[in-house]
């Protein structure tokens, strides 16, 4: 290039080596600064069955016990489990009232995915769990709340089935969201589950 003093071969090599070192240092800084996956669990609870909800709560509380941040997204059939049977809301049309009547009114009405046997199987399972001192869904949900596990309800599912936030259980920080809320959360989590 005009105006530049030409480097002799030795200086040129040193110059290149310094450039490489500088680039390497810059790369190392960039890698260290990159956000890695957080110690976080993102879980979709899609199903509406007792056994699946139990598994979901055991995993969620276990993860929180291990120091992970946990966010559970209740969608579709899972939404029904969050209903509070003691709360009633009005203003529903006929289809929404039908959904409300046909779907389980809260976690205590969930059925086993297999061996429900018109209620006998589910009752037996609950009885065995109680005898063996396994925490119930209600107990685990309360613990989840104490441990700061976040629950987000799928807004679209609530809209489809006519559920209102006012008929859901009291849970610390219970909020409503869409698919992007889940995906953003899942994208920065180290574990993602679909139950």
């Amino acid at each position, binding site marked *: 290039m005009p105006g530049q003093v030409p480097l002799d071969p030795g200086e040129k090599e040193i110059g290149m080596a310094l450039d490489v070192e500088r680039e390497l240092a810059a790369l190392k800084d960039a890698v260290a600064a990159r956000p890695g996956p957080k110690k976080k669990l993102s879980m979709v609870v899609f199903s509406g069955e007792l056994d699946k909800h139990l598994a979901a709560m055991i995993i969620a509380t276990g993860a929180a*016990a*291990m120091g992970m941040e946990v966010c559970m997204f209740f969608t579709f059939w899972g939404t029904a489990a969050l209903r509070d049977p003691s709360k009633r809301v009005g203003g529903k049309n006929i289809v929404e009232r039908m959904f409300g009547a046909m779907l389980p009114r809260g976690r205590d009405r969930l059925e086993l995915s297999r061996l429900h046997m018109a209620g006998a199987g589910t009752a037996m399972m609950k009885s065995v769990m109680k005898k063996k*001192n396994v925490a119930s869904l209600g107990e685990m949900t309360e613990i989840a709340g104490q*441990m700061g596990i976040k629950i987000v309800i799928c807004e679209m599912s609530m809209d489809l089935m006519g559920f209102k936030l006012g008929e859901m259980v009291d849970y610390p920080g219970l909020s409503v969201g869409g698919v992007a809320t889940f995906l953003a959360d899942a994208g920065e989590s180290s574990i993602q589950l679909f139950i």
Partner: protein
Amino acid sequence: MAAYQIAKSLDYKGLKCPMPIVKISQEMPRLTAGEVVEVLTTDPGSLSDFPAWAKTTGNQVVETTQESGVITIYVKKG
């Protein structure tokens, strides 16, 4: 069995998964680093759960013994 200075003895007998590790995780903030607690449990899953929990939370299982159905786990706060 070595003698430890036990800060506390925690009776988790009868509790089932996930309660033993949930409870120990709630106990940790009440301890200072280096303190050892003695956990008594009847949950066989705890044999593998406690070391796994300790590894991810930066604590330590210093010893585990088993006698007539009761598992004793010594947990040291990291």
